C-alpha cells in the first residue's frame, strides 16, 4: 500500500493498487476458458462424426471394395469408437499436431498457418471499421436529435442487407465499374494486402457496424438521461467533459461487450466474404473443407474460431472488472 498517511490530508496523494485479488480473478477466467474450449471441442468432434457422408468416399471413391474401404478406414483411425478417437485427437492437438487433411494429403497445420495472416488482416481491418464507425455513429445518434434519424436509417439498411449482397454490390461498383480495387486475391506485402482486403473488410463489417452503432446509440441515450449527468451539467462541466467522463465512459460497458462479441464472430463471418472475393483465407478453406468432408481441417478451423471467441470473451470479462468498480466487490461486501 502506498498511502499510509490516511489522516494527514496534505500528504501527497497517491493511488493505491486496486484491491481486487488480481491473480485469483485471472486464474479463474483462464481455467473457465480452458474448460469451455475443451467442452466445445468434444461437441464439435462428436457433431462432425455424426454428420451424414463418409470421408472414406473422398479417398477411395464410390466404387471401392469393402476391403479397400476397411483398409482406408483403419488408416484414418475411423474404426475405433468415438471417445477413443476424440482422446487421440485431443492428445495430438495439445502437442500441436492437428492431423492430416484428407483431400490435400498434407498436415492441417501447414494448410491453416499461411492462411491465418490473410484472414487476421481482414478481420482486424473489419474490426477497426466496426469499432471506429460503429461507436462514432452511435455517439452522434445518441447525443444529437438531428443525427438520430440518419443513424437509424443506416442501422436499418446495414442490418438488413446480408454480407453476400453487399459484397456483390461493392465488387460491382468499386472494383468493376470504378476499378479502384482488385476483385480477388489477398495481395502480397502489407500495402498491397490492405488494398486487396479493404473492400472485403467493408463488406464484412457493414452489418456489424450497424449493430454496434445501434447498441452505442441506445447506451449513450440511456446514460445521457441519468441523474448523475444532471449533476455534472449543474456543476458547470463542459459538454465535452460531460460526454467523455459521464456518458461515454458509462456507456462503454455494454458497447465494449457488443463490439467484442462482434469481432469474435468475424472469423466465422469471413467464410462468406472470402468466398465472394476469392480471398484464400481461413474462411474459404473452411468452406471447401466442409464441402469435401475434410473433417480434420473443419475441426481445426472450428477450434480456431472457438479459441478466438473464448479469448475475446475472457478478455471482455476482465475488462469489465477493470472498468466497473461495482463488479469488483464480489468477495467482501462494503
Amino acid at each position: 500500500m502506498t498511502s499510509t498517511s490516511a489522516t494527514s490530508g496534505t500528504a501527497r496523494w497517491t493511488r493505491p493498487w486496486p484491491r481486487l485479488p488480481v491473480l485469483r480473478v485471472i486464474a479463474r477466467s483462464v481455467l473457465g476458458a480452458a474448460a469451455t474450449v475443451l467442452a466445445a471441442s468434444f461437441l464439435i468432434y462428436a457433431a462432425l462424426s455424426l454428420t451424414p457422408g463418409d470421408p472414406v468416399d473422398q479417398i477411395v471413391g464410390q466404387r471401392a471394395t469393402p476391403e479397400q474401404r476397411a483398409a482406408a478406414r483403419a488408416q484414418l483411425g475411423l474404426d475405433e469408437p468415438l471417445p477413443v478417437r476424440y482422446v487421440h485427437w485431443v492428445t495430438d492437438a495439445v502437442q500441436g499436431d492437428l492431423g492430416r487433411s484428407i483431400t490435400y494429403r498434407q498436415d492441417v497445420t501447414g494448410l491453416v498457418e499461411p492462411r491465418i495472416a490473410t484472414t487476421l488482416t481482414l478481420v482486424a481491418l473489419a474490426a477497426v471499421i466496426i469499432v471506429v464507425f460503429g461507436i462514432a455513429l452511435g455517439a452522434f445518434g445518441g447525443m444529437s436529435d438531428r443525427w438520430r434519424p440518419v443513424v437509424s436509417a443506416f442501422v436499418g439498411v446495414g442490418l438488413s442487407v446480408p454480407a453476400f449482397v453487399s459484397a456483390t454490390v461493392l465488387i460491382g461498383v468499386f472494383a468493376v465499374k470504378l476499378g479502384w480495387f482488385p476483385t480477388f486475391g489477398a495481395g502480397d506485402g502489407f500495402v498491397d494486402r490492405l488494398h486487396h482486403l479493404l473492400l472485403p473488410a467493408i463488406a464484412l463489417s457493414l452489418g456489424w457496424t450497424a449493430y454496434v452503432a445501434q447498441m452505442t446509440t441506445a447506451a449513450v441515450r440511456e446514460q445521457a438521461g441519468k441523474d448523475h449527468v444532471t449533476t455534472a451539467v449543474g456543476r458547470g462541466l463542459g459538454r465535452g467533459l460531460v460526454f467523455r467522463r459521464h456518458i461515454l465512459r458509462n456507456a462503454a460497458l455494454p458497447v465494449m461487450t457488443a463490439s467484442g462479441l462482434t469481432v469474435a464472430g468475424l472469423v466465422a463471418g469471413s467464410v462468406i466474404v472470402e468466398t465472394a472475393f476469392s480471398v484464400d483465407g481461413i474462411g474459404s478453406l473452411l468452406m471447401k473443407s466442409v464441402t469435401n468432408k475434410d473433417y480434420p481441417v473443419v475441426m481445426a478451423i472450428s477450434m480456431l474460431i472457438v479459441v478466438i471467441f473464448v479469448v475475446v470473451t475472457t478478455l471482455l470479462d476482465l475488462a469489465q472488472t477493470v472498468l466497473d468498480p461495482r463488479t469488483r466487490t464480489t468477495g467482501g461486501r462494503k
Partner: protein
Amino acid sequence: MTATKTTEAEMRQMAAAPALLDIEHLRIDLPGRGRGDSMRRVIHDVSLSVAPGASVGLVGESGSGKSMTTKAVMGLLPKGAKVSGAVRFRGEDVSTYDRKRWTAYRSHDASMIHQDPRSYTNPLVRMGDFLIESVVATRQMTRDEARDKACALLREVGIADAARRMEQYPHELSGGLLQRMMIVMALMPSPSLVLADEPTTALDPTVQSEVVAILSEQIRERSVGLLFITHDLDLAAAINDSLAVMYAGVIVEKGPSSALVAHPRHPYTAGLLRSRPRLDEVEELRAIPGRPLSAFEAGKGCVFASRCEFATDRCREERPELIEAGGRSVACHRADELSDVLVGGSA
C-alpha cells in the same frame, strides 16, 4: 391592481438589500410526454428571494413544483420547457447568460445538492475525483489544491478518514456518508448560493437529522445563501430564517419561519401544521381532506380551493395574488377574516 402592489413591495425590499437570488413570477410549462401532447404547466407563479447569507425554506408536497423551481435556477429544465418571469442572480437575469457565464455560475456561484445522492453520483467515478472535478475543470484550483480542500471539508463534515474515503466509489459508501460527500461537493467552489433539493428524503430518519445539522452548520459558518427544499414544514422552520409554502405550482404563503409556524395565514399552511404528529400530546391526526393537486390540474380559482374548508365562490373563480403586509405574504382572499381562525403550532 394587486399585482403591481406586490411587485412594488418587492422592488422596495430589493433596493434595501440586493437579493442574492430573486425569483419573480416564475411560470414554467413543460412539453407533454407523448408526441402531440399539449404543454403541461408545472409552475404557475413563484416569487421568492434569498438575501446573501440568508436561508429560505421552500415547503410543499411532492408535485407542487419545488424541484422544478430549483431546476430553473440552475438552468437544468428539460428541453422544450417554456419559462416566463425571471430568475435573477445578483440582479442579473440568468436567461441572458451565455454558455461561458452559465459555466462560471454553475461551477462557482451556485451549487446544488440533489435529493438522492446515489443516483446523482456517477458509479464509475471515485469520490475524490468526483469532488474535485468541477473546480479543476474550470481552473479554479489545481488538482493538489482541490484535493487538500476536499480533505479539509470532508473532515469538517465529520468524515475522519478522508483520504481513504476519496479512494472509494459511491457504491461503497452509505447513504448518509454519500450525502455528506455531496455537501462537500457543493461547498468545494465556495459558492454564495446553495440549493438543497430534499437533501434528506432518501436517507434513514436517524441519519436525516445528522445530515441536516451538518448542512445548516456549514452554510451558517460560511454565510452562504441557502434555498432549502423540503416537504417537512417543521424541519424547514427549524433551519431556515424564512419560509415559502408552495402548493400546486403556486406560492401561497411567505414569511419569517417562527411567525409563519406560530400564526399561519393561509389555510393550506394551517392544514399542514395541523396534520403533523406531535410527540407531547396524543390526539387524532387531522389530515387535509382530498389529494394534493398537480399544477396543471388547477382551475382558474385559488389552487387550494377544492380542499379548503373556507373556500367561497370567489375562491373558486378568481385566483388570489400574493399580497405582502407586515413582512408576511399570503395569497388568500379571506386572509384577513381568517387571521383569528387559523391556529398554528409551536415552532
